[in-house]
């Protein structure tokens, strides 16, 4: 069981940007709790608000034109109410970040050692030599061979996977309570992705830290998440424990997303059920349910007029829709139901005993 008091408590988070095309309402009232040791996955497509909702926690977005409202309590302090100077104590110290592209999140003109020690010297008040010692230890923990000799190397001297390990080491350097991994493996090849996913899970277990994993990849989510938030048009449209969400997704968008995914080992004759149309622009959100123009159900007359509320439909399972996809249909959309043959590494082979 997880600790009863959440490390991070987000309520009514709202982010808007003033743009030339009018007001972009990018995040529209997001709530969640994050507990120590827990992995929360935020899933959505581009423009769904998944990244901005997390960046906004420590105001890592340009303000103005951005505007952030709501509360985000980290250990009792509301980050949204903090001034820029106060936030400096939190960024990197209590919330660490790992971004998508290690080529852009590392500074190409500084050796990685300097980038690793910077945060520790600032937040932990330790001197250069102690920080370097810790840096070596961190690089070792993230699996970089002969770490002591790599501290003075520059980012371009590392491969993509190794660079992302350096970024993770930086994210972990001040031992944060929360680590945000924003599409942290999207730029990597699958075999490297597997290494990084495994690494973060292992470090998380060792440190008891909470992880917010932002991704568009439902496969990665299935492997790591305790709880999943599905975002669409700036809102959480469905939120549930991972097992429950994959076994019985209820929102038409979540079901649509699962149906449109090609699944390794799935039967070929089944056509992918694509979601028609396009996600809405945050400057031009449709009235009623944000998903209704693309929804293949749209069975309730309120869909086009009234924004549906987020309701708890089963313990811990929240859905923002007037229509719930029936269990049998939802199950047919799941990967488990579409896979025809057992995956190769779980084949039962009675002839060859262990």
């Amino acid at each position, binding site marked *: 069981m997880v600790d009863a008091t959440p490390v991070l408590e987000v309520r009514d988070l709202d982010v808007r940007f003033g743009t030339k095309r009018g007001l972009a309402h990018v995040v529209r009232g997001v709530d969640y709790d994050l507990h120590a040791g827990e992995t929360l996955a935020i899933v959505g*497509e*581009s423009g769904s608000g998944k990244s901005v909702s997390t960046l906004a926690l420590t105001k890592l977005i340009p303000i103005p034109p951005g505007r952030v409202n709501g509360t985000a309590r980290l250990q009792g302090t509301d980050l949204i109410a903090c001034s820029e100077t106060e936030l400096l104590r939190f960024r990197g110290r209590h919330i660490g970040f790992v971004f998508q592209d290690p080529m852009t999140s590392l500074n190409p003109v500084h050796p990685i050692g300097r980038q690793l020690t910077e945060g520790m010297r600032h937040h932990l008040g330790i001197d250069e030599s102690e920080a370097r010692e810790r840096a070596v230890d961190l690089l070792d923990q993230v699996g970089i061979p002969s770490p002591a000799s790599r501290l003075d190397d520059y980012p371009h001297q590392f*491969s993509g*996977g*190794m660079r992302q390990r350096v970024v993770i080491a930086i994210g972990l350097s001040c031992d944060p309570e929360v680590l945000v991994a924003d599409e942290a493996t999207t730029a990597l*090849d*699958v*075999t*490297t*992705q*597997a*290494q990084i*996913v*495994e690494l973060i899970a292992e470090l998380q277990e060792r440190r008891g830290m909470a992880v917010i994993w932002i991704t*568009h*990849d*439902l*496969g*990665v*989510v*299935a*492997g790591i998440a305790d709880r999943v938030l599905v975002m669409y048009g700036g809102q959480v449209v469905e939120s549930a424990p*991972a*097992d429950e969400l*994959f076994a019985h997704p209820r929102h038409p968008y979540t079901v*649509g*997303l*699962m*149906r*449109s*995914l*090609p*699944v*390794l*080992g*799935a039967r*070929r004759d089944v*056509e*992918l*059920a*694509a*979601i*028609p149309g*396009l*996600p809405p622009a945050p400057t031009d959100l449709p009235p009623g349910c944000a998903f209704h123009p693309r929804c293949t159900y749209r069975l309730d007359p309120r869909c086009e007029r009234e924004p549906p509320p987020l309701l708890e439909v089963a313990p811990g399972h929240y859905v923002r829709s007037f229509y719930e996809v029936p269990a049998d249909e939802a199950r047919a959309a*799941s*990967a*488990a139901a579409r*896979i025809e*043959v057992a*995956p*190769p*590494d*779980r084949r039962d*082979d009675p002839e*060859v005993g262990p």
Partner: protein
Amino acid sequence: MSEPLVQVRDLTVHFPVGGRRDHRVVRAVDGVSFTVARGETLGLVGESGCGKSTTGLALLRLVEPTSGQVHFDGTDVRALRRRELRAWRRRAAMIFQDPYASLDPRSTVGDAVGEALDIHGLHQGRVARRARIGDLLERVGLHPDVAERFPHEFSGGQRQRVGVARALACEPDFIVADEPIAALDVSIQAQVMNLLAELQADLGLTFLFIAHDLAAVQHVSDRIAVMYLGRIVELADRDRLYRDPQHPYTRALLSAIPVPDPTRERARERILLSGDVPSPTDVPSGCRFRTRCPVVVEACGRLDPALQERGDGHEAACLRYGEVGTEVARSSHVDAS
């Protein structure tokens, strides 16, 4: 069975690294052989830098192969002269990854599609040209009126539809699709994959589908070739490759792909490969996968295994082909965990 539409033998593409004195080469494609039957989709998968895109470009001579043979419906593609090559290209088209970069921002969508018609003289007059462009746009699910619009007015998925319409303009027999869905959102990827499947069924097209996403490749392909460091290491029927992978790299790749099902994800054992892909300027001796291979033996450093077939159409380039699927693979799981 009739002769395959595309036959590739020992294709190599080497790029010089730099200066005149520098004799090193990037061995992007280093001896690749395969065939594509008429109406078939051959999937080509591999990780970044494995040479899959260069293979596709070299097939159409969009980069010149260094050596090897490419035969297309009886034509020796490498022997074609300039004008012959241009005429031949009517029959073989390409769809690119990035619909943002592959369309000229200053030309209308109609002109982007119509350019191919102009080059090959495939229309009689402006009215016929416009009608043909309208048909092509409709074919890919766009309204004919959008011909007057510019690429920036379209979403990524719509732009990729324009890319497909452009590829179809000359009524090709064969299309090389290089990562056609990688830049698109999940819900849009399925739209494009379904479109390609529909076009194949209606027009009898033959595809080389190049992608890093094995789940997508498996969805669209009849057979799949797996590339590693400039070589095909395994080639098999889509189901067989998944059910009974023979090359240790294929096994690692399959085990690394996350499946959206928590029960499966928890139960599975990943084969984590150590280290990184070696540089294509400095390919290891012997088997090029040996530096990361969980089942490497001493002989792998000396012998460079060629693709071998065991009579069932399943080819693999591994000295331990045949062993690997069974007890060797088991021991590799133990090593890896």
